[in-house]
């Protein structure tokens, strides 16, 4: 039982303060709701708590690298690039928050105010009807209950506020948006892009990456200074994060209460009213529990954490948890599979270089299985890439020591260009999360058990993902092109999606077209959990749009007394 019940009732409770939660808090408070924003981790105040944001490389004892102690304490994080000395505090303490892997799943978490909005890759693209039609067209999983047209005005809204720098390219597969001027392609990127225009019947496009790094100031935020330090928290507020963008807006309304160190153990469900009545919170420091009441609850805890919370809620009514009546809660977990592509050398640019450090590169949108192309797999992939001149690290493998060697290593080296493919993973009921009652976290909660693997479709797609990049680069005149496949395990994309999918039918989906839990209409889930399919396109911008749309709907339903 709870230790106490908080008398003050809120209009809305938002669980999680990352990209989705920040948007929910902003939208709901701006519409006049009194909102309690709950965050399981510590607070990080904008600028003040970005302790390493302006530190120089030489101020780190290991120059940003990892130590054997770090590897020991962060065995999951150590599996890929996130483990590093510079923003270690932004990643979850794995000893406190274990999870169970039925199959290897790399779960890279950020438990703090701002969540992973502090460390995200900032790539911001709209999904299109090629994505929203996909399941219906392929007869896979269930149909999305929405189409692009319903989301487009919400993309407009979130892009304008978040600040997305990009070029209007006029491509059906990747709709244009409300963009600031893009971060310019450098001469290497432009060279390859221009060549590509004349190849492959003009169907493959190398475009400016669209990124949430602003190129013009916004209220309270400065334009990008080309520091390229975008995972430390930006002292200029130049990249979108909860702290730089949505949280100040929510605070300015006077309607927000932010509570860090608040772990939601369950959503409280009133079986007579068939509504959630609030949430139960464990204080992460004292372990005391408190119940908070609200008219509406938004779950924005990140895909796996929102599913984990639903699995623990209302189990007296539904043994499988709140939202489980369809039998789909926790199922259909997806990610983007990647870590392969090609790279090579650019010739003819030895007399060219750049000034500053760009926070992004280029993007090649999907061209497979669209516009008449047909492959032996479903769906497709896009590429993220960049061109640059090599730095000193090339000298490690080169012969030589001494003064001439040192001075040569200090000069920029060969221009190289490369692209890495990000592919769509099909929804599959068998890819799922459940509660592992045999293992408890630091707060006594049964941990999440993750059972997820890619299948044949992804394996077939990966051949194209690697070969196509090499083919494009070689055709564009890039020399010494080499392919690579670093291997992939689910989770590494840090694009977890699914587990509480949206749909048209309560019998086969967890959420309806407004991200409302079918079984509890005053509970909304607006993070990646709701995604019905994964697209190959980076998902965060779509979470923002879905959250803003759901918040608008929730307030309108509250006004109509439907919740």
């Amino acid at each position, binding site marked *: 039982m709870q230790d106490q019940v908080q008398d003050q009732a809120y209009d809305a409770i938002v669980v999680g303060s990352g990209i989705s939660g920040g948007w929910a808090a902003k939208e709901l408070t701006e519409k006049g709701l009194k909102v309690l924003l709950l965050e399981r981790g510590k607070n990080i105040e904008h600028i003040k708590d970005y302790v390493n944001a*302006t530190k*120089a*490389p*030489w101020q780190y004892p*290991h*120059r940003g*690298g*990892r130590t054997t102690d770090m590897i020991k304490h962060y065995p999951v994080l150590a599996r890929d*690039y996130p483990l*590093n000395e510079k923003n270690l505090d932004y990643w979850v303490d794995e000893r406190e928050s274990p999870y169970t892997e039925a199959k290897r799943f790399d779960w890279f978490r950020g438990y703090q105010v701002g969540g992973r909005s502090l*460390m995200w*890759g900032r790539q911001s693209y709209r999904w299109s009807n090629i994505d929203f039609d996909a399941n219906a067209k392929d007869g896979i999983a269930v149909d999305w209950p929405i189409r692009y047209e319903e989301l487009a005005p919400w993309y407009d809204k979130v892009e304008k506020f978040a600040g997305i720098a990009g070029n209007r390219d006029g491509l059906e597969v990747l709709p244009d948006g409300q963009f600031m001027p893009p971060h*310019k392609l450098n001469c290497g990127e432009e060279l390859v892009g221009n060549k590509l225009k004349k190849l492959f019947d003009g169907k493959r496009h190398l475009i400016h*990456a669209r990124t949430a790094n602003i190129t013009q100031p916004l209220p309270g935020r400065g334009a990008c*200074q*080309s*520091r*390229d*330090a*975008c*995972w430390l928290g930006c002292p200029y507020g130049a990249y979108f994060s909860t702290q730089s963008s949505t949280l100040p807006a929510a605070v300015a309304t006077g309607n927000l209460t932010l509570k860090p160190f608040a772990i939601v153990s369950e959503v409280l469900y009133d079986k007579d009213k068939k509504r959630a009545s609030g949430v139960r919170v464990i204080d992460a420091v004292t372990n005391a529990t408190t119940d908070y009441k609200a008219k509406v609850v938004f779950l924005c805890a990140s895909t796996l954490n929102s599913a984990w919370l639903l699995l623990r809620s209302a189990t007296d009514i539904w043994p499988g948890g709140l939202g489980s009546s369809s039998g789909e809660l926790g199922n259909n977990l997806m990610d983007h599979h*990647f*870590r392969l592509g090609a*790279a*090579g*050398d650019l010739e003819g640019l*030895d007399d*060219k*270089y*750049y*000034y500053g*450090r760009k926070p*992004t590169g280029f993007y090649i949108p999907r061209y497979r299985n669209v516009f008449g192309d047909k492959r032996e797999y479903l769906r497709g992939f896009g590429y993220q890439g*960049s061109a*640059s001149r*090599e*730095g*000193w*690290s090339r000298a490690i*493998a080169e*012969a030589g*020591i*001494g*003064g001439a*060697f*040192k*001075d040569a*290593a*200090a*000069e*920029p*080296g*060969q221009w*190289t*260009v*490369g692209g890495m493919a990000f592919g769509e993973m099909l929804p599959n009921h068998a890819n799922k999360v459940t509660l592992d009652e045999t293992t408890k976290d630091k707060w006594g909660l049964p941990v999440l058990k993750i059972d997820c693997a890619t299948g044949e479709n992804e394996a077939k797609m990966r051949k194209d993902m690697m070969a196509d990049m090499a083919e494009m680069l070689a055709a564009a005149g890039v020399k010494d092109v080499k*392919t*690579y496949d*670093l*291997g992939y395990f689910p989770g590494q994309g840090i694009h977890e999606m699914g587990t509480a999918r949206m749909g048209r039918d309560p019998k086969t989906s967890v959420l309806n077209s407004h991200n409302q839990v079918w079984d509890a209409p005053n509970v909304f889930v607006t993070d990646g959990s709701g995604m019905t399919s994964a697209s190959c396109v980076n998902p965060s911008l779509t979470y923002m749009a879905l959250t803003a749309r759901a918040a608008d709907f929730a307030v309108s339903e509250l006004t109509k007394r439907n919740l």
Partner: protein
Amino acid sequence: MSLDTDKPLLAQSLIDRREAIKRVSALLGGAALIGGSALWTGCAPKDSPPVAADGTAAFVPFTAAEIAYLDEIADTILPDTKTPGAKAAKTGAFMAVMVADSYQPKDQAIFRDGMKTLDAAAETANKTTFVASTPAHRLALLETLDKEQKAYMDTKKPDDPAHYFRMMKELSLLGYFTSEIGCTQAQRYIESPGRYDPCLPYTKGEVSWASHA
């Protein structure tokens, strides 16, 4: 060519997946695989012994004399030129920290043994220690070792141990080019460049941008 997943990749830093892409392209463009150690992305080597709980395998810190010795090695690889060299950038102390904190025990052993091997080679060639050898003798010895390590590293099997002199060279380069001298004097370091010019004329001799994070 494909890359083994358990081979650590090295670059100045790694920020995101775009940076991973840059790293891979740098790698394919000729930058190195760090031998045996797991500094940047690496999974711990499969056969690395566990860290002993009773402290028997605890690493004995380098002495001031050993750090001075490492400084001389680094400074022979990266000497004073138009910019100060590795000793001025305190590269020896950095190498000592990295070997102690970031190397797996078997790589620590290779590195330590390598320091003895190198001194023994100096004794044979110059009848004195490496530190006491003349600058010309030091250079000649390390040029020989550099050829030896490169030939070995270019042909070794993935699971074979790294050559100790590759480790020394790599840590020298890493330590120097991420030091204050290496960033601000040998390269261009501007904390907030303020703009990005995507395409500027470049004249041979101009130095690289140092990375931030």
